């Protein structure tokens, strides 16, 4: 490895970093006196250009990835699920940047955009990382960015409080993760994911089984925190509620995509150990595992199943009781994370699982950004994100109400919207990996709970469409914001009607 190789692999990340610096310089040097909205527009546009350049750079990346000198063990992968996740991260980042134009939570827009871009860089690296150290550094880069973004509304006590909570929980989770990593290194003598997985299937690996279980639980705790899986979810409702809306949208979408990409990376590395020839199913369900050592797959999927079930159940049930739409979105995010964890617990080496998970998380990210966009507009007009702030929305802004209608029903999984396809794909992927009783039961549970979810999404829509308005004044949003929201709703509908579009694109990697 020389620096030229590194540069050729990290071209997209480099482009983002350069863009972050350019934003800072332009904003601080040239636009000090300009009005806030002009500065926000310029900063957001520069950020968008940076993301665009980053996507372009992906075409010129060296296609082999980056390896340790001499060993051929991957540090950063290129192509495959990494490319999909990276492109998704960049597109979702662009959408969250557009939400900035209409907000007024901070005067430091240049810094805000720069931090967003740096956090996105962390996301790109996470999606590519194949080595414990790289994973750790990239996760920290993303997390630190998120803590800052959460606290960005300096005049809001809630923002500061939630950032502090997020930071404390995050620090704890990181400690767990690092502790788990240290055990993994102890077992395998390597930080490369591939080497670690190989070590776990060595003949003498059973001797270190207890160590492995501790390590896996620790790692699951650290990563479960990132994806807001119950019981590591406590930060999510507060952060979703307290963070400025564009930052909350970023946390809810981009950081989720990156974290799930990492989980895909771990599962893929495990599946690779079996090689292409064998039907590689990482997840063989916990049934009968007590008899002996089953390598990485069985304990890992047992842990993921536990996380998935608790997330689905608690997320959906707690969302029923929420009065704040942001908190509702936080709990529903846990539920969605639960569904995805199910697919990660029953993961197959064939592209099907990977594609189903990516499809789900990307479309979920898209929908959530839209939902936060609507919440942000309503919040600016009414000063509240309570459900009652949405009363009579169909009168106050018919377009906004229609956008919300499409997005929330998609989250509930009503066809022909994209959320339904995502769920269907995901559940089919689970059932295809294993046709036993346990996956059937878990899928049935997930489907039943998504029936529950319709109730709370309808609670919001009921206020928007059914109940009488308290206040009839129209809600006006910035045309760019409206444009982005309409675009998101339209693509949720279009991807739902023509699901093969995105699936075909995913299958191309």
């Amino acid at each position, binding site marked *: 490895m020389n620096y030229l190789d590194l540069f050729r692999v990290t071209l997209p990340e480099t482009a983002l970093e350069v863009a972050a610096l350019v934003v800072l310089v332009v904003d601080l040097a040239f636009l000090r006196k300009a009005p806030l909205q002009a500065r926000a527009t310029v900063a957001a546009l520069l950020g968008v250009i940076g993301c665009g350049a980053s996507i372009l750079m992906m075409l010129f990346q060296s296609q082999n990835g980056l390896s340790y000198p001499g060993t051929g063990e991957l540090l950063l992968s290129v192509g495959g699920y990494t490319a999909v996740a990276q492109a998704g991260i960049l597109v979702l980042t662009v959408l969250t940047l557009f939400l900035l134009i209409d907000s007024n939570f901070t005067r430091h827009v240049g810094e805000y955009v720069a931090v967003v871009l740096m956090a996105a860089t962390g996301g790109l690296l996470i999606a590519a990382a194949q080595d414990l150290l790289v994973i750790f550094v990239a996760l920290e880069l993303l997390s630190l960015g998120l803590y800052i973004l959460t606290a960005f509304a300096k005049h809001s006590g809630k923002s500061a409080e939630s950032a502090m909570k997020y930071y404390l929980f995050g620090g704890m989770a990181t400690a767990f993760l690092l502790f788990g990593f240290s055990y993994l290194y102890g077992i395998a003598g390597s930080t490369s994911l591939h080497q670690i997985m190989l070590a776990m299937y060595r003949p003498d690996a059973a001797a270190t089984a207890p160590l492995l279980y501790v390590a896996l639980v620790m790692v699951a705790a650290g990563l479960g925190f990132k994806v807001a899986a119950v019981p590591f979810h406590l930060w999510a409702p507060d952060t979703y509620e307290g963070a400025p809306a564009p930052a909350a949208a970023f946390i809810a979408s981009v950081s989720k995509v990156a974290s799930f990409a990492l989980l895909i990376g771990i599962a893929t590395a495990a599946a690779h150990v079996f090689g292409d020839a064998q039907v590689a199913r990482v997840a063989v369900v916990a049934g009968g595992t007590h008899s002996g050592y089953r390598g990485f797959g069985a304990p890992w999927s047992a842990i993921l199943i536990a996380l998935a079930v608790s997330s689905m159940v608690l997320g959906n049930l707690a969302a029923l009781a929420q009065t704040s739409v942001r908190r509702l979105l936080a709990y529903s995010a846990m539920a969605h994370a639960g569904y995805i964890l199910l697919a990660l617990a029953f993961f197959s080496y064939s592209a099907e699982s990977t594609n189903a998970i990516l499809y789900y998380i990307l479309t979920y990210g898209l929908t959530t950004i839209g939902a936060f966009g609507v919440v942000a507009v309503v919040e600016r007009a009414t000063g509240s994100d309570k459900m009652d702030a949405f009363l009579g929305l169909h009168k106050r802004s018919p377009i906004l109400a229609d956008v919300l209608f499409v997005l929330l*029903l998609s989250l509930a999984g009503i066809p*022909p919207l994209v959320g339904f396809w995502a769920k269907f794909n995901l559940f*089919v992927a689970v059932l*295809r990996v294993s046709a036993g009783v346990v996956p059937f039961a878990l899928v049935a549970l997930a*489907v039943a709970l998504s029936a529950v979810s319709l*109730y709370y999404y309808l609670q919001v829509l009921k206020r928007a469409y*059914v109940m009488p308005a308290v206040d009839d004044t129209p809600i006006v949003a910035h045309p760019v914001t409206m444009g982005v929201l309409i675009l998101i709703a339209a693509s949720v509908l279009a991807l739902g009607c023509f699901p093969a579009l995105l699936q*075909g694109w995913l299958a191309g990697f």
Partner: protein
Amino acid sequence: MLALTIYLSFAGALIETMLPKTKAAPARWFALIVAMAGLALGIAGFASGMGKGLVTFVDMPWVPSMGIHFRLAADGISRVLVLLTGLAAVAGVLFSWNIEFRTNQFFAFFLALIGGVYGVFLSFDLFLLFVFYEIAIVPKYFLIAIWGSTRREYAAMKLAIYSFVGSAMVLVGLLAAYATSGGHSTGLAELAHAGLPVSFQMWAFPLVFTGFAILAGMWPFHTWAPTGHVAAPTAASMLLAGVVMKLGAYGCLRVAIALFPHGMDPWGFSFAGLTSWRDVFAVLAVIGIVYGALVALAQTDFKFVIGYSSVSHMGFVLLGLMTLNQVGVTGAVLQMFSHGVIAGLLFAIVGRILYDRTHTRQLAELERMHLSKRLPFAAWAFVIAGMASMGLPGFSGFVAELQVLIGAWVARPWWTAAAGVGIVIGVAYTWRALQKAFFADALPTPDEHPRTGWPKFEAITWPEIAGTALLVAATVVVGVYPRILLDTIEPAVKTLLAGGAQ
């Protein structure tokens, strides 16, 4: 050609949302035109399909990687139900002529619901069928919640949750059938021929059947139906009872029975006299018939009488399906059509013609109004509808229920005996409602002045007359000359029961 009904309805719904909000007339007329075009297409498709078996309109890959096809087709059963949907849609628009509040949105939801219903009846890919089935849920919620009456938000949410739970059960069955059959295709014919293992069908059948039957008002999952029907605006109750409940029954037949026929095989043991899932569901259907009729007998709210009578009549449909013989299942399909028309008519009379003038649905209050003299049109219409509902010869209900009972007799005689009790009670509750609402001679309350004449009700409008005439004509024509539908239904049922190409 029939496939156009789907596109037309959805396009109509979309255009309705763009019509001016403040003016009601354009929205009404446009909705009427769309609904009539749908009915015309339904009639034309019905006529041109006579004597033909399954006709495929569209069959193209939708999600190639998963073997999901966009496959629209129609056999005799579909054609009859599409015709019913067309009738219900036109009548529904006519009886919603008085909607003044957010009119264009009302008809947008109305047409979207109709489009979803057409889609279910014409889908021959299980996945596509499911998509349309779910599309129909959301408009129902908003139709009831926004334009409804008695406890509308409660009733709307109850209906939505029941429907969604039912469809969740169907979805689990769908996923399981798809994965078990190897995950190559979701076409109904392909799945029927996939040779699903009997042990799998044994649990998939009750799951999917129950999922669909929730929407068909099967006891004890019927409780959404009376509250939903009562709370809904007239047109929505007409659609709910007229076609939406048929979606459930149709799914039971087209999906549960056709795909999982071995799910109805005997268990090999007897539990409380029941030896198979077929017995279980037949017993539930019979309970529904008798229970619905008994509860209807005790209602004080006129609309609840009709609501519970729907539960009772849909029991006949489910019982007919569970006979699994030619005559019984044919009767079930005919009963779907018949009940769709008759229930629509009853709800129109009670919810629109009466309620809009008297502003009450309480039988105790209607008793004092001498409605047979003051609203002779409504009284006549209800006499006819009531006779049809009781199952008198000359109306469609007679032919349908007779066939169901014959089929049930062939299968298990005591089913017929029990269901016969339901018919007798059916006469009683219809008679009671008729007598109390129209022909009671209770004395007028002192504050009314019979000498100067009662205050005039507003005159019957032309949409009401047209809608009533349309529905009465439909039930009489089928009652007098049932072959018109039976010739189309019978071959399709035969193929379906033989498990042949669907």
